[in-house]
């Protein structure tokens, strides 16, 4: 064993294959992003006044990330790595350069050939954007320089000390968050009568002003120096507290804080942000329900939207005067009881035939059932009862004595949704630690063995289905009252998929994870029909959802905020190996069992 690290590599001692591989991927990614139309579409959204738009950001993050990736070294235990040095920076530079060359080729291509027929975005608009409304030579120069610069910067991230890296990260992420949250902060400062603050940060036409960018970057970079890891310490102390009484007290304090924020916040927010939060809540309610089905019981239900639709339609039929066939015009509260009954029935009806299937088969069959329900609502056969494609309109708001919850008043909707979410969180939390929760986890792990333990697997799984169904139907009921109408097209398959992505990205089985997931995904990107904070994303939402899902599965399968359990299990090398072996075993056993 050597006691010191090896000297750094010689400058030109490069792994050319690796560098050219990542460089080409970098170039291809940039060209892909351009041709998809992201930069042109997102160019309207200014992040930093007259300097950076979201559109450009979507091009320039690529060389940065690939510069970082290409210079990353595989750290093997017991093997000495050469000290990083200029050679790594050069790899980053070359990668970025190749990426820039990709854009140059694209510009020349657009200038000389017309491929607009298959490639919609192969147009002068993109060219103008890439050349900064200047000559191609000028544009090429800029992109090559930017590529090299960001590639080197990405590579240099490995060579910074932890503290500097942290400062850089704080500054970049902080600025990005501020820029993205511009609408919220604007809105909030208006509510708090602090307009001067937002006027100072943001320029009139959108984006952070250049001066405040610099000031904020410096302040943010100084933050880690000032706190010196005290925050982290406090968090870890909070997490690792062994004393159950203290733990409980901590959770109560935290919960109270969050509750107060959510109760007070809407008064300082305008209609648009409140509306947005109400949407986040509706999807959170759905995601919490699906989290029980998928995260706890391990039943991959791809037709979850069916229960959402049942809740919406039941409310519509029972409260709307326009319901074509049966129109008792009851109060929302009474219809809610019917919703629970209908959702339970739907859960049993869909659940009973499919619950004996496992894994992939269950996913496919539930996918089918989800579509069947939507097509039933759309069908001519049920048109006299449910209105077909015209749906049911004129659903009244929720009359709560002194208050009325209706779509025109997003704040009231937000409070309504909040109440349901709190209920759902409480239910999920209690169920997790309960006997049935234990049974669900056992079934998720190994169904046959769960049966051997004496767990009634069919009943337990049906129970999970029904609990999930009821939570989803609540969401549907509030949605109907909020929007004032229901149409079959509001209950597309896409809803199921997006909720599933929220659960997976947030962290399966983790209540906090699901909350963060819906806040980030639905709040920023938006739901299937609901715009998020970055409304410019509207057309690219699914692309980004997909990319995010792939990235999460590869790099962070436990989700953004995993349960403590999942992190341990997924990052334990030893466990992974065991799991591989173990999975092989159980598969073989199942095969053997089926043969018998």
């Amino acid at each position, binding site marked *: 064993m050597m006691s010191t690290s090896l000297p750094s590599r010689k400058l030109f001692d490069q792994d050319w294959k690796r560098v050219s591989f990542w460089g080409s991927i970098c170039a291809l990614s940039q060209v892909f992003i351009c041709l998809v139309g992201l930069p042109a579409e997102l160019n309207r959204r200014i992040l930093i006044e007259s300097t950076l738009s979201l559109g450009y950001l979507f091009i320039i993050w690529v060389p940065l990330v690939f510069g970082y990736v290409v210079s990353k070294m595989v750290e093997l235990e017991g093997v000495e790595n050469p000290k990083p040095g200029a050679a790594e920076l050069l790899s980053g530079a070359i990668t970025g350069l190749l990426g820039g060359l990709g854009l140059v080729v694209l510009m020349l291509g657009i200038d000389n050939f017309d491929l607009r027929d298959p490639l919609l975005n192969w147009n002068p608009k993109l060219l103008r954007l890439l050349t900064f409304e200047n000559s191609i030579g000028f544009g090429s120069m800029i992109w090559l320089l930017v590529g090299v610069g960001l590639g080197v910067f990405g590579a240099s991230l490995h060579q910074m000390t932890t503290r500097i890296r942290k400062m850089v990260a704080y500054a970049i992420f902080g600025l990005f968050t501020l820029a993205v949250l511009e609408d919220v902060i604007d809105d909030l400062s208006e509510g708090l009568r602090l307009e001067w603050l937002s006027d100072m940060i943001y320029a009139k036409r959108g984006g952070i002003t250049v001066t405040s960018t610099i000031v904020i970057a410096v302040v943010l970079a100084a933050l880690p120096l000032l706190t010196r890891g005290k925050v982290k310490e406090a968090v870890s102390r909070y997490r690792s507290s062994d004393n159950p009484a203290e733990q409980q007290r901590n959770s109560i304090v935290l919960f109270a804080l969050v509750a107060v924020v959510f109760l007070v916040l809407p008064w300082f927010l305008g209609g648009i942000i409140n509306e947005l939060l109400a949407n986040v809540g509706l999807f959170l309610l759905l995601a919490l329900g699906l989290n029980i089905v998928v995260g706890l019981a391990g039943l991959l239900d791809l037709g979850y939207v069916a229960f959402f639709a049942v809740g919406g339609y039941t409310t519509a039929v029972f409260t709307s005067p326009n319901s074509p066939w049966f129109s008792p015009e009851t109060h929302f509260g009474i219809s809610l009881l019917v919703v629970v009954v209908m959702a339970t029935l739907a859960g049993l009806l869909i659940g009973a035939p499919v619950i004996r299937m496992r894994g992939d088969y269950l996913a496919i069959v539930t996918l089918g059932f989800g579509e069947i329900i939507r097509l039933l609502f759309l069908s001519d056969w049920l048109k006299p009862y449910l209105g077909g494609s015209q749906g049911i309109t004129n659903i009244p708001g929720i009359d709560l004595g002194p208050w009325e919850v209706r779509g025109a008043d997003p704040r009231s909707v937000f409070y309504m949704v909040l109440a349901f979410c709190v209920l759902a969180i409480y239910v999920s939390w209690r169920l997790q630690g309960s*006997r049935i929760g*234990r*049974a669900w*986890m*056992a079934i998720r*792990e*190994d169904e*046959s*063995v*769960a*049966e*051997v*333990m*004496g*767990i*009634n697997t069919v009943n337990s799984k049906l129970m999970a289905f029904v609990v999930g169904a009821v939570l989803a139907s609540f969401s549907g009921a509030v949605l109907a009252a909020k929007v004032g109408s229901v149409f079959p097209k509001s209950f597309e398959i896409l809803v199921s998929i997006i909720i599933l992505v929220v659960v997976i990205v947030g962290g399966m089985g983790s209540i906090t994870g699901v909350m963060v997931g819906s806040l980030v995904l639905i709040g920023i990107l938006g739901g299937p029909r609901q715009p998020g904070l970055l409304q410019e994303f509207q057309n690219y939402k699914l692309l980004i959802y997909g990319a995010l899902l792939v990235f999460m599965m590869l790099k962070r399968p436990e989700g953004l905020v995993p349960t403590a*359990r*999942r992190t*341990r*299990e997924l990052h*334990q090398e*030893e*466990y992974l190996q*065991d*799991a591989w072996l*173990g999975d092989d*075993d*159980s598969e073989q*056993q199942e095969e*053997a*069992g089926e*043969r*018998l």
Partner: protein
Amino acid sequence: MTETALLEFRSVNTHYGAVHILKDVDLAIYPGEMVCLLGGNASGKSTTLKTLLGMVTPTSGEVLLDGEVVNDKPTSYRVVNGVTMVPENRRLFKRLTVKENLELGAYLRDDKEGIEEDLENIYELFPRVKERLSQKSGTLSGGEQQMVAIGRALMSRPRVLLMDEPSMGLAPALVQQNFELIQQIHEEGVAIFMVEQNANMALSIADRGWVLQTGRVVLDDTAEALLANPELRSSYLGES
């Protein structure tokens, strides 16, 4: 024997679809006995276990528990009445902790003190398990997993323990240790019904045994007699 058998098969037949698996099988396990079931691949050993536990319903014949016909009773009924299985290859709930695995063994019990008491007994039996209570069971070594699997089964206070290939997938050094463990549990009064490929080892500790061949019981005798049986020696004990 005039005693009532704890578990009994009376000419049991089972089918998977059209395939006839068990053919007129008769078995009886008496309280406190140690018996074993031998047989090659696809001879119906696993089906026998599944039928005893109620996961497979016989097409004809009777399964009796304490002399009562339990053909239509669910698995949970049999678990409550003292029948438990240690599955093949242990099959712990890998992503749950050791403690959670043990507690799931007592899923159908609601006597809190009794469960605590049994947990203590298991810690005493397997001190290694106690050290690893909060660890994911999937991270344990093979031998430790076997302890947890047995512990999990014991948590339901069984009167008879069905063991599916207890020595399969264990390192050779652990096989002997494993059989000693089984004997130890047996000495505490739990009847053991073992399905084993390792016929030599199983017969050396068992009282009686059966040999299954393509779903039919072809030999039914005391362990000594089976060990001495030339036919068995040639086909299962690897002697020609």
